[in-house]
Protein backbone atom coordinates (compact mmCIF):
# COMPACT_ATOMS: atom_id res chain seq x y z
CA UNK A 1 0.00 0.00 0.00
CA UNK A 2 2.81 2.40 0.97
CA UNK A 3 4.68 1.66 -2.27
CA UNK A 4 1.52 2.31 -4.25
CA UNK A 5 1.11 5.67 -2.50
CA UNK A 6 4.69 6.68 -3.17
CA UNK A 7 4.23 5.80 -6.84
CA UNK A 8 1.02 7.81 -7.01
CA UNK A 9 2.69 10.83 -5.45
CA UNK A 10 5.72 10.46 -7.71
CA UNK A 11 3.41 10.23 -10.69
CA UNK A 12 1.65 13.47 -9.77
CA UNK A 13 4.97 15.26 -9.17
CA UNK A 14 6.46 14.06 -12.44
CA UNK A 15 3.29 14.89 -14.33
CA UNK A 16 3.26 18.40 -12.94
CA UNK A 17 6.97 18.85 -13.67
CA UNK A 18 6.40 17.73 -17.22
CA UNK A 19 3.59 20.21 -17.67
CA UNK A 20 5.71 23.04 -16.28
CA UNK A 21 8.58 22.22 -18.56
CA UNK A 22 6.76 21.73 -21.82
CA UNK A 23 4.92 24.06 -24.09
CA UNK A 24 1.54 23.33 -22.56
CA UNK A 25 2.15 26.12 -20.08
CA UNK A 26 0.39 29.37 -20.89
CA UNK A 27 2.71 32.08 -22.29
CA UNK A 28 0.64 34.84 -20.64
CA UNK A 29 2.36 37.00 -18.05
CA UNK A 30 1.14 36.53 -14.51
CA UNK A 31 -1.28 39.13 -13.20
CA UNK A 32 -0.20 41.65 -10.58
CA UNK A 33 0.64 40.19 -7.21
CA UNK A 34 -1.03 43.15 -5.51
CA UNK A 35 -3.83 45.48 -6.56
CA UNK A 36 -2.12 48.58 -8.01
CA UNK A 37 -4.35 50.99 -6.09
CA UNK A 38 -5.12 50.93 -2.41
CA UNK A 39 -8.81 50.29 -1.82
CA UNK A 40 -10.94 52.31 0.58
CA UNK A 41 -12.85 51.06 3.61
CA UNK A 42 -15.88 48.84 3.20
CA UNK A 43 -16.73 46.07 0.78
CA UNK A 44 -15.33 46.76 -2.71
CA UNK A 45 -17.45 46.42 -5.87
CA UNK A 46 -14.92 45.49 -8.54
CA UNK A 47 -17.35 46.15 -11.39
CA UNK A 48 -17.65 49.84 -10.43
CA UNK A 49 -14.20 50.43 -11.97
CA UNK A 50 -13.82 47.33 -14.18
CA UNK A 51 -17.25 47.66 -15.76
CA UNK A 52 -17.41 44.98 -18.45
CA UNK A 53 -13.82 43.71 -18.43
CA UNK A 54 -12.77 40.13 -17.89
CA UNK A 55 -10.42 39.66 -14.93
CA UNK A 56 -6.99 38.73 -16.29
CA UNK A 57 -6.03 35.20 -15.44
CA UNK A 58 -9.45 34.33 -14.04
CA UNK A 59 -11.14 35.07 -17.42
CA UNK A 60 -14.37 35.98 -15.64
CA UNK A 61 -16.31 39.24 -15.44
CA UNK A 62 -15.03 41.42 -12.60
CA UNK A 63 -18.63 41.50 -11.41
CA UNK A 64 -18.09 37.88 -10.28
CA UNK A 65 -15.83 39.29 -7.55
CA UNK A 66 -18.14 42.09 -6.37
CA UNK A 67 -18.23 41.87 -2.57
CA UNK A 68 -22.01 41.77 -2.24
CA UNK A 69 -23.74 40.47 0.88
CA UNK A 70 -24.20 37.18 -0.96
CA UNK A 71 -20.52 37.03 -1.94
CA UNK A 72 -19.42 37.46 1.67
CA UNK A 73 -21.57 34.51 2.77
CA UNK A 74 -20.67 32.22 -0.15
CA UNK A 75 -17.08 33.17 -0.97
CA UNK A 76 -15.97 29.52 -0.87
CA UNK A 77 -16.65 29.21 -4.60
CA UNK A 78 -14.35 32.09 -5.52
CA UNK A 79 -11.69 30.94 -3.03
CA UNK A 80 -11.77 27.52 -4.66
CA UNK A 81 -11.41 28.65 -8.27
CA UNK A 82 -9.58 31.97 -7.95
CA UNK A 83 -7.41 32.01 -4.83
CA UNK A 84 -4.81 33.98 -6.81
CA UNK A 85 -7.31 36.76 -7.49
CA UNK A 86 -8.20 36.89 -3.77
CA UNK A 87 -4.48 37.15 -2.96
CA UNK A 88 -4.07 40.35 -4.96
CA UNK A 89 -5.88 42.20 -2.14
CA UNK A 90 -5.96 39.79 0.83
CA UNK A 91 -3.03 38.35 2.76
CA UNK A 92 -3.62 34.79 3.87
CA UNK A 93 -3.89 36.01 7.45
CA UNK A 94 -7.25 37.53 6.44
CA UNK A 95 -8.56 34.03 5.68
CA UNK A 96 -6.95 32.75 8.88
CA UNK A 97 -9.05 35.17 10.93
CA UNK A 98 -11.81 32.55 10.63
CA UNK A 99 -10.27 29.54 8.84
CA UNK A 100 -7.32 29.06 11.15
CA UNK A 101 -7.44 25.33 11.79
CA UNK A 102 -6.92 26.09 15.45
CA UNK A 103 -7.75 29.48 16.96
CA UNK A 104 -7.60 30.65 20.60
CA UNK A 105 -10.95 32.49 20.60
CA UNK A 106 -13.99 32.80 18.40
CA UNK A 107 -13.59 35.44 15.68
CA UNK A 108 -16.55 37.48 16.97
CA UNK A 109 -14.64 38.08 20.24
CA UNK A 110 -11.36 38.86 18.54
CA UNK A 111 -13.10 41.40 16.30
CA UNK A 112 -15.60 42.75 18.80
CA UNK A 113 -14.69 46.26 17.62
CA UNK A 114 -15.69 45.44 14.03
CA UNK A 115 -19.46 44.87 14.08
CA UNK A 116 -19.53 45.66 10.35
CA UNK A 117 -17.73 42.40 9.55
CA UNK A 118 -19.74 39.20 9.13
CA UNK A 119 -18.17 37.18 11.94
CA UNK A 120 -19.59 33.79 12.87
CA UNK A 121 -21.12 33.05 16.27
CA UNK A 122 -21.91 36.50 17.61
CA UNK A 123 -23.68 36.70 20.97
CA UNK A 124 -24.33 33.62 23.12
CA UNK A 125 -23.75 31.02 20.45
CA UNK A 126 -23.31 28.32 23.08
CA UNK A 127 -27.08 28.31 23.50
CA UNK A 128 -27.92 28.79 19.84
CA UNK A 129 -25.66 26.00 18.62
CA UNK A 130 -28.00 23.40 20.15
CA UNK A 131 -30.59 24.46 17.61
CA UNK A 132 -28.48 25.23 14.57
CA UNK A 133 -26.60 21.98 15.08
CA UNK A 134 -29.87 20.05 14.83
CA UNK A 135 -31.18 22.09 11.93
CA UNK A 136 -28.03 21.73 9.81
CA UNK A 137 -24.98 19.99 11.30
CA UNK A 138 -23.30 20.08 7.89
CA UNK A 139 -22.85 23.85 8.30
CA UNK A 140 -20.87 23.16 11.53
CA UNK A 141 -18.80 20.50 9.78
CA UNK A 142 -17.15 22.93 7.38
CA UNK A 143 -15.08 24.49 10.18
CA UNK A 144 -15.41 22.01 13.07
CA UNK A 145 -15.60 18.62 11.36
CA UNK A 146 -11.88 17.98 11.27
CA UNK A 147 -10.42 21.01 13.07
CA UNK A 148 -11.32 23.75 15.55
CA UNK A 149 -13.27 21.29 17.68
CA UNK A 150 -11.33 21.15 20.94
CA UNK A 151 -14.19 22.77 22.82
CA UNK A 152 -16.81 20.57 21.11
CA UNK A 153 -15.23 17.53 22.73
CA UNK A 154 -15.86 18.90 26.21
CA UNK A 155 -19.49 17.72 25.81
CA UNK A 156 -19.61 15.67 22.58
CA UNK A 157 -17.44 12.76 23.63
Amino acid sequence: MARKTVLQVLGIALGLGFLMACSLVSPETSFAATHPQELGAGRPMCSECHSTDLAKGALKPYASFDHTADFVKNHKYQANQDANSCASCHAQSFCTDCHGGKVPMKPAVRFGDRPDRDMPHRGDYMTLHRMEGKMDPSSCYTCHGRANNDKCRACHR
Partner: protein
Amino acid sequence: MKRRTHVALLATLMSATAWGQEVSLYGTTMAQMWKSETPGFDKATFTPATQYLGIDATKLGTDRLSLHLFGWGRTDLGDASNFDGSKDGSKNGGYLNYGYLRYRFDRANAEIKAGRFTVQQSTGFEQVDGVAARTDLRGGFTVSAFVGKPVLYKTVDPRDQHDYEFQRDVIFGTRLGWRLPQVGEFGLSYLQDGTKAAKDLTIPSPVDYTRKQLGADLLVAPTATFGLRGRTVFDIASHEAQAPGAPDRSRVAEHDYTATVKIGSQVTVSGNFAERNFFAYFAGTNLPSLFRQDDRDMFKGWGGSVTWNTPWSIQVVADYRHMHRELYGDVNRMGGELRWANAEKTIQAGAAGHYVNAAKTLLVDSATPYRSLKHAEARLWGMVTKGKFSASLDGILQRYSEANPHLNGLTNVYEMVGSLGYQATSSLRVSGDLSYGSTPVAKSETRGLLKAEYRFGFGKKGGQ
Protein backbone atom coordinates in the same frame (compact mmCIF):
# COMPACT_ATOMS: atom_id res chain seq x y z
CA MET B 1 5.11 16.59 13.27
CA LYS B 2 7.00 16.67 16.57
CA ARG B 3 7.32 19.87 18.59
CA ARG B 4 11.11 19.91 18.11
CA THR B 5 10.68 19.71 14.36
CA HIS B 6 8.20 22.57 14.54
CA VAL B 7 10.67 24.74 16.43
CA ALA B 8 13.51 23.92 14.01
CA LEU B 9 11.31 24.63 10.99
CA LEU B 10 10.06 27.87 12.48
CA ALA B 11 13.58 29.02 13.36
CA THR B 12 14.74 28.30 9.81
CA LEU B 13 11.83 30.16 8.28
CA MET B 14 12.20 33.11 10.68
CA SER B 15 15.91 33.46 9.89
CA ALA B 16 15.04 33.49 6.18
CA THR B 17 13.25 36.81 6.68
CA ALA B 18 16.66 38.43 7.12
CA TRP B 19 17.16 38.03 3.36
CA GLY B 20 13.94 39.86 2.59
CA GLN B 21 14.18 43.34 1.07
CA GLU B 22 10.59 44.08 2.03
CA VAL B 23 9.54 42.73 5.40
CA SER B 24 6.14 43.37 6.90
CA LEU B 25 5.43 42.41 10.49
CA TYR B 26 1.97 42.65 12.02
CA GLY B 27 0.47 41.45 15.23
CA THR B 28 -2.17 41.81 17.87
CA THR B 29 -1.63 41.59 21.61
CA MET B 30 -4.77 40.88 23.61
CA ALA B 31 -5.50 40.67 27.32
CA GLN B 32 -8.91 39.40 28.43
CA MET B 33 -10.59 39.07 31.79
CA TRP B 34 -13.83 37.49 32.92
CA LYS B 35 -15.22 35.73 35.96
CA SER B 36 -17.27 32.59 35.88
CA GLU B 37 -19.91 31.71 38.46
CA THR B 38 -21.60 28.66 37.05
CA PRO B 39 -23.92 26.80 39.46
CA GLY B 40 -22.30 23.52 40.46
CA PHE B 41 -18.77 24.64 39.57
CA ASP B 42 -16.05 26.50 41.46
CA LYS B 43 -15.77 30.21 40.87
CA ALA B 44 -12.95 31.02 38.50
CA THR B 45 -11.23 34.13 37.14
CA PHE B 46 -9.79 33.89 33.67
CA THR B 47 -7.14 36.30 32.43
CA PRO B 48 -5.67 34.88 29.25
CA ALA B 49 -3.12 36.90 27.27
CA THR B 50 -2.94 36.14 23.56
CA GLN B 51 -0.39 37.17 20.98
CA TYR B 52 -1.00 36.90 17.23
CA LEU B 53 2.00 37.46 14.97
CA GLY B 54 2.38 37.51 11.20
CA ILE B 55 5.37 38.11 8.92
CA ASP B 56 5.39 38.62 5.16
CA ALA B 57 8.90 38.89 3.71
CA THR B 58 9.15 39.42 -0.05
CA LYS B 59 12.07 39.62 -2.49
CA LEU B 60 14.14 36.99 -0.72
CA GLY B 61 17.16 37.24 -2.99
CA THR B 62 14.86 37.30 -6.00
CA ASP B 63 11.67 39.25 -6.64
CA ARG B 64 9.75 36.02 -7.02
CA LEU B 65 10.50 34.39 -3.68
CA SER B 66 8.59 35.30 -0.52
CA LEU B 67 8.00 33.97 2.98
CA HIS B 68 4.73 34.05 4.91
CA LEU B 69 4.25 33.18 8.58
CA PHE B 70 1.30 33.50 10.95
CA GLY B 71 0.60 32.02 14.35
CA TRP B 72 -0.48 32.69 17.89
CA GLY B 73 0.54 31.98 21.45
CA ARG B 74 -1.43 32.20 24.68
CA THR B 75 -0.82 32.04 28.37
CA ASP B 76 -3.24 32.24 31.27
CA LEU B 77 -2.37 34.65 34.03
CA GLY B 78 -5.17 33.27 36.24
CA ASP B 79 -7.10 29.99 36.07
CA ALA B 80 -6.53 27.72 33.09
CA SER B 81 -9.05 28.63 30.41
CA ASN B 82 -8.06 25.67 28.23
CA PHE B 83 -8.70 27.51 24.99
CA ASP B 84 -6.57 25.20 22.93
CA GLY B 85 -8.08 22.07 24.36
CA SER B 86 -5.02 20.95 26.28
CA LYS B 87 -6.05 17.91 28.28
CA ASP B 88 -3.59 18.49 31.13
CA GLY B 89 -4.96 21.82 32.33
CA SER B 90 -1.99 23.64 30.84
CA LYS B 91 -2.07 27.41 30.95
CA ASN B 92 -0.05 27.80 27.78
CA GLY B 93 -0.84 27.11 24.17
CA GLY B 94 0.17 28.10 20.69
CA TYR B 95 -0.18 27.21 17.07
CA LEU B 96 1.44 27.90 13.71
CA ASN B 97 -1.45 28.59 11.35
CA TYR B 98 0.80 28.79 8.31
CA GLY B 99 4.46 29.17 7.43
CA TYR B 100 5.62 28.68 3.86
CA LEU B 101 8.00 29.81 1.15
CA ARG B 102 6.34 30.84 -2.09
CA TYR B 103 7.97 31.11 -5.51
CA ARG B 104 5.85 33.00 -8.04
CA PHE B 105 6.70 32.72 -11.73
CA ASP B 106 6.47 35.60 -14.21
CA ARG B 107 4.34 33.55 -16.57
CA ALA B 108 1.13 31.58 -16.36
CA ASN B 109 0.28 32.61 -12.78
CA ALA B 110 2.44 29.67 -11.80
CA GLU B 111 3.63 29.27 -8.23
CA ILE B 112 5.15 26.74 -5.87
CA LYS B 113 4.62 26.71 -2.10
CA ALA B 114 6.53 24.70 0.47
CA GLY B 115 5.93 24.53 4.22
CA ARG B 116 2.64 24.67 6.14
CA PHE B 117 -0.18 26.11 4.05
CA THR B 118 -3.90 25.77 3.45
CA VAL B 119 -5.46 24.36 0.32
CA GLN B 120 -8.99 25.03 -0.83
CA GLN B 121 -10.32 23.19 -3.80
CA SER B 122 -13.68 21.68 -4.52
CA THR B 123 -13.15 18.72 -2.27
CA GLY B 124 -12.37 20.64 0.90
CA PHE B 125 -10.28 23.03 2.97
CA GLU B 126 -7.09 21.37 4.18
CA GLN B 127 -4.02 22.33 6.24
CA VAL B 128 -0.93 20.60 4.92
CA ASP B 129 2.77 20.39 5.77
CA GLY B 130 4.12 19.82 2.29
CA VAL B 131 4.43 21.18 -1.25
CA ALA B 132 1.86 22.69 -3.62
CA ALA B 133 2.08 23.96 -7.19
CA ARG B 134 -0.25 25.49 -9.77
CA THR B 135 -0.05 26.90 -13.28
CA ASP B 136 -2.22 28.08 -16.13
CA LEU B 137 -2.00 26.07 -19.33
CA ARG B 138 -2.73 26.95 -22.94
CA GLY B 139 -6.35 26.87 -24.02
CA GLY B 140 -7.68 28.19 -20.71
CA PHE B 141 -6.76 25.11 -18.71
CA THR B 142 -5.31 25.30 -15.19
CA VAL B 143 -3.76 22.58 -13.07
CA SER B 144 -2.82 22.45 -9.41
CA ALA B 145 -1.61 19.75 -7.05
CA PHE B 146 -0.40 19.35 -3.49
CA VAL B 147 1.12 16.61 -1.38
CA GLY B 148 2.28 16.40 2.21
CA LYS B 149 1.51 15.37 5.72
CA PRO B 150 -1.94 16.40 6.95
CA VAL B 151 -1.95 18.68 9.96
CA LEU B 152 -3.27 16.63 12.86
CA TYR B 153 -5.45 18.37 15.42
CA LYS B 154 -5.22 15.70 18.12
CA THR B 155 -8.75 16.07 19.38
CA VAL B 156 -9.74 12.46 18.91
CA ASP B 157 -10.17 10.05 21.76
CA PRO B 158 -6.65 9.38 23.13
CA ARG B 159 -7.34 5.64 22.82
CA ASP B 160 -7.70 6.11 19.07
CA GLN B 161 -4.87 8.62 18.73
CA HIS B 162 -2.47 6.04 17.42
CA ASP B 163 -4.93 4.99 14.73
CA TYR B 164 -5.61 8.61 13.83
CA GLU B 165 -1.94 9.30 13.14
CA PHE B 166 -1.38 5.94 11.53
CA GLN B 167 -4.28 6.20 9.11
CA ARG B 168 -3.62 9.81 8.11
CA ASP B 169 -0.06 9.28 6.91
CA VAL B 170 -0.22 11.40 3.77
CA ILE B 171 -2.60 13.79 2.01
CA PHE B 172 -2.58 14.72 -1.64
CA GLY B 173 -4.90 16.20 -4.20
CA THR B 174 -5.13 17.74 -7.61
CA ARG B 175 -7.52 19.91 -9.62
CA LEU B 176 -7.84 20.44 -13.36
CA GLY B 177 -9.81 23.49 -14.45
CA TRP B 178 -10.95 24.84 -17.79
CA ARG B 179 -11.72 28.54 -18.22
CA LEU B 180 -13.75 29.77 -21.17
CA PRO B 181 -14.05 33.55 -21.66
CA GLN B 182 -17.70 34.70 -21.64
CA VAL B 183 -18.78 31.25 -20.45
CA GLY B 184 -17.15 30.45 -17.09
CA GLU B 185 -15.03 27.73 -15.52
CA PHE B 186 -15.34 23.99 -15.01
CA GLY B 187 -13.16 22.00 -12.64
CA LEU B 188 -12.51 18.41 -11.65
CA SER B 189 -10.61 17.54 -8.47
CA TYR B 190 -9.44 14.60 -6.42
CA LEU B 191 -8.45 14.35 -2.77
CA GLN B 192 -6.99 11.48 -0.79
CA ASP B 193 -6.41 11.88 2.93
CA GLY B 194 -4.57 8.88 4.41
CA THR B 195 -3.78 5.57 2.79
CA LYS B 196 -4.57 3.14 5.61
CA ALA B 197 -8.33 2.76 5.73
CA ALA B 198 -9.71 1.44 9.00
CA LYS B 199 -11.18 -1.68 7.40
CA ASP B 200 -7.82 -2.63 5.86
CA LEU B 201 -5.82 -2.61 9.11
CA THR B 202 -4.69 -5.90 10.63
CA ILE B 203 -6.88 -5.10 13.60
CA PRO B 204 -9.67 -3.02 12.03
CA SER B 205 -10.05 0.36 13.73
CA PRO B 206 -13.50 1.36 14.97
CA VAL B 207 -13.25 4.74 13.23
CA ASP B 208 -12.11 5.56 9.72
CA TYR B 209 -10.23 8.85 9.49
CA THR B 210 -9.34 8.50 5.81
CA ARG B 211 -11.10 10.03 2.80
CA LYS B 212 -11.15 9.65 -0.96
CA GLN B 213 -13.21 12.27 -2.71
CA LEU B 214 -13.86 13.36 -6.26
CA GLY B 215 -15.21 16.85 -6.86
CA ALA B 216 -16.66 18.80 -9.75
CA ASP B 217 -17.13 22.56 -9.67
CA LEU B 218 -18.45 25.11 -12.11
CA LEU B 219 -19.04 28.75 -12.72
CA VAL B 220 -21.27 29.84 -15.57
CA ALA B 221 -21.05 33.62 -15.98
CA PRO B 222 -21.70 34.59 -19.61
CA THR B 223 -22.44 38.19 -18.63
CA ALA B 224 -21.80 40.46 -15.68
CA THR B 225 -25.46 40.14 -14.69
CA PHE B 226 -25.75 36.38 -14.29
CA GLY B 227 -23.70 33.79 -12.46
CA LEU B 228 -24.22 30.16 -11.50
CA ARG B 229 -21.65 28.68 -9.13
CA GLY B 230 -21.53 25.37 -7.41
CA ARG B 231 -19.93 22.05 -6.74
CA THR B 232 -20.69 18.38 -6.31
CA VAL B 233 -18.47 16.12 -4.22
CA PHE B 234 -18.52 12.32 -4.38
CA ASP B 235 -17.24 9.85 -1.79
CA ILE B 236 -15.28 7.27 -3.79
CA ALA B 237 -13.68 5.33 -0.92
CA SER B 238 -14.55 1.68 -0.52
CA HIS B 239 -16.48 0.97 2.68
CA GLU B 240 -17.49 -2.12 4.57
CA ALA B 241 -20.52 -3.85 3.12
CA GLN B 242 -23.88 -2.80 4.54
CA ALA B 243 -26.17 -5.13 6.39
CA PRO B 244 -28.51 -7.11 4.11
CA GLY B 245 -31.70 -5.20 3.38
CA ALA B 246 -30.29 -1.81 4.41
CA PRO B 247 -31.05 1.07 2.04
CA ASP B 248 -28.18 1.99 -0.26
CA ARG B 249 -25.94 4.80 0.96
CA SER B 250 -25.63 7.78 -1.33
CA ARG B 251 -22.20 8.32 -2.85
CA VAL B 252 -22.94 12.02 -3.22
CA ALA B 253 -21.36 13.85 -0.30
CA GLU B 254 -22.56 17.28 -1.37
CA HIS B 255 -24.41 19.32 -3.97
CA ASP B 256 -24.17 23.07 -3.39
CA TYR B 257 -25.24 25.55 -6.11
CA THR B 258 -25.97 29.27 -6.08
CA ALA B 259 -27.37 31.37 -8.93
CA THR B 260 -27.16 35.17 -8.92
CA VAL B 261 -28.96 37.66 -11.15
CA LYS B 262 -28.30 41.40 -11.12
CA ILE B 263 -31.29 43.50 -12.06
CA GLY B 264 -30.14 46.96 -13.07
CA SER B 265 -27.42 48.52 -10.96
CA GLN B 266 -29.22 48.29 -7.63
CA VAL B 267 -30.87 44.90 -7.16
CA THR B 268 -29.30 41.44 -6.85
CA VAL B 269 -31.36 38.27 -6.53
CA SER B 270 -29.77 34.97 -5.58
CA GLY B 271 -30.99 31.44 -4.99
CA ASN B 272 -29.21 28.46 -3.44
CA PHE B 273 -29.74 24.72 -3.27
CA ALA B 274 -27.67 22.37 -1.12
CA GLU B 275 -27.86 18.66 -0.28
CA ARG B 276 -25.47 16.77 1.98
CA ASN B 277 -25.60 13.06 2.78
CA PHE B 278 -24.00 12.54 6.15
CA PHE B 279 -22.36 9.17 5.61
CA ALA B 280 -20.38 10.51 2.66
CA TYR B 281 -20.08 14.13 3.79
CA PHE B 282 -18.79 13.40 7.31
CA ALA B 283 -16.15 10.95 6.07
CA GLY B 284 -12.80 11.56 7.72
CA THR B 285 -14.06 13.56 10.70
CA ASN B 286 -11.93 13.43 13.83
CA LEU B 287 -15.04 13.92 15.97
CA PRO B 288 -17.19 10.96 14.96
CA SER B 289 -19.28 11.13 18.12
CA LEU B 290 -20.67 14.47 16.97
CA PHE B 291 -20.54 14.20 13.17
CA ARG B 292 -22.08 10.75 12.95
CA GLN B 293 -21.92 8.96 9.62
CA ASP B 294 -25.54 7.93 9.75
CA ASP B 295 -26.48 5.87 6.69
CA ARG B 296 -29.85 7.56 6.25
CA ASP B 297 -29.52 11.06 7.66
CA MET B 298 -29.11 13.93 5.24
CA PHE B 299 -29.63 17.69 4.93
CA LYS B 300 -31.38 19.47 2.12
CA GLY B 301 -31.77 23.24 1.98
CA TRP B 302 -32.95 25.83 -0.48
CA GLY B 303 -33.59 29.53 -0.29
CA GLY B 304 -32.62 32.90 -1.60
CA SER B 305 -32.02 36.54 -0.94
CA VAL B 306 -32.80 39.89 -2.51
CA THR B 307 -30.31 42.73 -2.04
CA TRP B 308 -31.24 46.32 -2.86
CA ASN B 309 -28.48 48.91 -2.83
CA THR B 310 -30.62 52.03 -2.58
CA PRO B 311 -29.46 55.42 -3.87
CA TRP B 312 -29.42 56.64 -0.25
CA SER B 313 -26.38 54.57 0.83
CA ILE B 314 -28.64 52.03 2.50
CA GLN B 315 -28.35 48.35 1.65
CA VAL B 316 -31.47 46.27 2.23
CA VAL B 317 -31.29 42.46 2.27
CA ALA B 318 -34.24 40.09 2.64
CA ASP B 319 -33.51 36.38 2.92
CA TYR B 320 -35.32 33.07 3.32
CA ARG B 321 -34.07 29.51 3.74
CA HIS B 322 -35.94 26.24 4.01
CA MET B 323 -34.00 23.45 5.73
CA HIS B 324 -34.91 19.79 5.75
CA ARG B 325 -33.18 17.14 7.79
CA GLU B 326 -34.20 13.55 7.33
CA LEU B 327 -34.32 12.77 11.05
CA TYR B 328 -35.76 16.02 12.43
CA GLY B 329 -38.02 17.42 9.72
CA ASP B 330 -38.30 20.95 8.39
CA VAL B 331 -37.54 24.47 9.59
CA ASN B 332 -37.80 27.85 7.87
CA ARG B 333 -35.50 30.80 8.52
CA MET B 334 -36.46 34.23 7.29
CA GLY B 335 -35.43 37.77 7.96
CA GLY B 336 -33.71 40.87 6.75
CA GLU B 337 -30.84 43.25 7.26
CA LEU B 338 -30.26 46.98 6.80
CA ARG B 339 -26.84 48.60 6.44
CA TRP B 340 -26.02 52.27 6.11
CA ALA B 341 -22.71 54.09 5.69
CA ASN B 342 -21.89 57.69 4.92
CA ALA B 343 -19.82 58.48 1.81
CA GLU B 344 -16.52 58.50 3.73
CA LYS B 345 -17.52 55.33 5.61
CA THR B 346 -16.64 57.02 8.90
CA ILE B 347 -20.14 56.32 10.23
CA GLN B 348 -21.74 52.91 9.70
CA ALA B 349 -24.80 51.30 11.19
CA GLY B 350 -26.81 48.16 10.75
CA ALA B 351 -29.90 46.34 11.95
CA ALA B 352 -30.96 42.76 11.37
CA GLY B 353 -33.78 40.45 12.41
CA HIS B 354 -34.38 36.76 11.77
CA TYR B 355 -37.03 34.29 12.78
CA VAL B 356 -36.89 30.49 12.74
CA ASN B 357 -40.20 28.68 12.44
CA ALA B 358 -39.95 25.04 13.43
CA ALA B 359 -43.63 24.08 13.32
CA LYS B 360 -42.98 21.11 11.02
CA THR B 361 -40.06 19.74 13.02
CA LEU B 362 -40.31 16.14 14.16
CA LEU B 363 -39.65 15.21 17.77
CA VAL B 364 -36.06 16.28 18.38
CA ASP B 365 -35.65 14.12 21.47
CA SER B 366 -37.91 12.56 24.04
CA ALA B 367 -37.51 15.42 26.54
CA THR B 368 -37.76 18.25 24.07
CA PRO B 369 -40.87 19.26 22.16
CA TYR B 370 -40.58 20.68 18.67
CA ARG B 371 -40.54 24.20 20.07
CA SER B 372 -36.95 23.68 21.14
CA LEU B 373 -35.78 24.81 17.69
CA LYS B 374 -38.01 27.86 17.39
CA HIS B 375 -36.28 31.18 18.03
CA ALA B 376 -35.82 34.75 16.87
CA GLU B 377 -32.76 36.98 16.73
CA ALA B 378 -32.35 40.75 16.49
CA ARG B 379 -29.17 42.78 16.13
CA LEU B 380 -28.35 46.48 16.14
CA TRP B 381 -24.89 47.97 15.68
CA GLY B 382 -23.07 51.20 14.94
CA MET B 383 -19.49 52.35 14.29
CA VAL B 384 -17.99 55.83 14.29
CA THR B 385 -14.47 56.92 13.35
CA LYS B 386 -13.46 60.51 14.02
CA GLY B 387 -9.83 61.46 13.55
CA LYS B 388 -7.74 59.07 15.57
CA PHE B 389 -10.66 57.86 17.69
CA SER B 390 -13.16 55.15 16.93
CA ALA B 391 -16.11 53.72 18.80
CA SER B 392 -18.59 50.92 18.22
CA LEU B 393 -21.63 49.42 19.90
CA ASP B 394 -23.13 46.05 19.05
CA GLY B 395 -26.23 44.53 20.65
CA ILE B 396 -27.71 41.12 19.95
CA LEU B 397 -30.88 39.60 21.39
CA GLN B 398 -32.02 35.99 21.00
CA ARG B 399 -35.54 35.04 22.03
CA TYR B 400 -36.38 31.39 22.61
CA SER B 401 -39.55 29.47 23.26
CA GLU B 402 -40.75 29.31 26.86
CA ALA B 403 -41.20 25.58 26.36
CA ASN B 404 -37.49 25.04 25.77
CA PRO B 405 -36.32 22.93 28.72
CA HIS B 406 -32.61 23.67 28.29
CA LEU B 407 -32.62 27.38 29.14
CA ASN B 408 -33.20 27.39 32.91
CA GLY B 409 -36.45 29.31 32.42
CA LEU B 410 -34.77 32.08 30.44
CA THR B 411 -36.39 33.17 27.18
CA ASN B 412 -34.31 36.26 26.34
CA VAL B 413 -30.57 35.90 25.92
CA TYR B 414 -28.60 39.03 25.05
CA GLU B 415 -25.13 40.46 24.72
CA MET B 416 -23.87 44.00 24.25
CA VAL B 417 -20.33 44.86 23.21
CA GLY B 418 -18.93 48.38 23.38
CA SER B 419 -15.52 49.31 22.07
CA LEU B 420 -13.29 52.40 22.10
CA GLY B 421 -10.17 52.65 19.97
CA TYR B 422 -7.30 55.09 19.44
CA GLN B 423 -4.95 55.14 16.46
CA ALA B 424 -1.81 56.20 18.32
CA THR B 425 0.45 56.17 15.23
CA SER B 426 0.10 54.95 11.67
CA SER B 427 1.50 51.62 12.89
CA LEU B 428 -0.18 51.26 16.27
CA ARG B 429 -3.81 51.11 17.35
CA VAL B 430 -5.03 50.40 20.87
CA SER B 431 -8.59 49.57 21.85
CA GLY B 432 -10.69 48.21 24.68
CA ASP B 433 -13.90 46.18 24.52
CA LEU B 434 -16.42 45.69 27.30
CA SER B 435 -19.22 43.18 26.92
CA TYR B 436 -22.21 42.45 29.14
CA GLY B 437 -24.77 39.74 28.63
CA SER B 438 -27.09 37.15 30.04
CA THR B 439 -26.96 33.44 29.23
CA PRO B 440 -28.78 30.36 30.57
CA VAL B 441 -25.51 29.28 32.24
CA ALA B 442 -24.31 32.58 33.68
CA LYS B 443 -27.22 34.82 34.69
CA SER B 444 -25.03 37.80 33.94
CA GLU B 445 -21.60 37.92 32.41
CA THR B 446 -19.15 40.81 32.08
CA ARG B 447 -16.01 40.52 29.98
CA GLY B 448 -13.18 42.94 29.32
CA LEU B 449 -10.64 42.90 26.52
CA LEU B 450 -7.64 45.14 25.83
CA LYS B 451 -6.04 45.04 22.42
CA ALA B 452 -2.96 46.52 20.76
CA GLU B 453 -2.61 46.09 16.99
CA TYR B 454 0.58 47.02 15.19
CA ARG B 455 2.00 46.82 11.72
CA PHE B 456 5.52 47.60 10.60
CA GLY B 457 7.15 47.38 7.21
CA PHE B 458 6.27 47.69 3.55
CA GLY B 459 3.46 45.22 3.04
CA LYS B 460 0.11 46.74 2.15
CA LYS B 461 -2.33 43.91 2.24
CA GLY B 462 -1.56 41.90 5.39
CA GLY B 463 -4.75 41.49 7.32
CA GLN B 464 -6.81 43.25 4.67
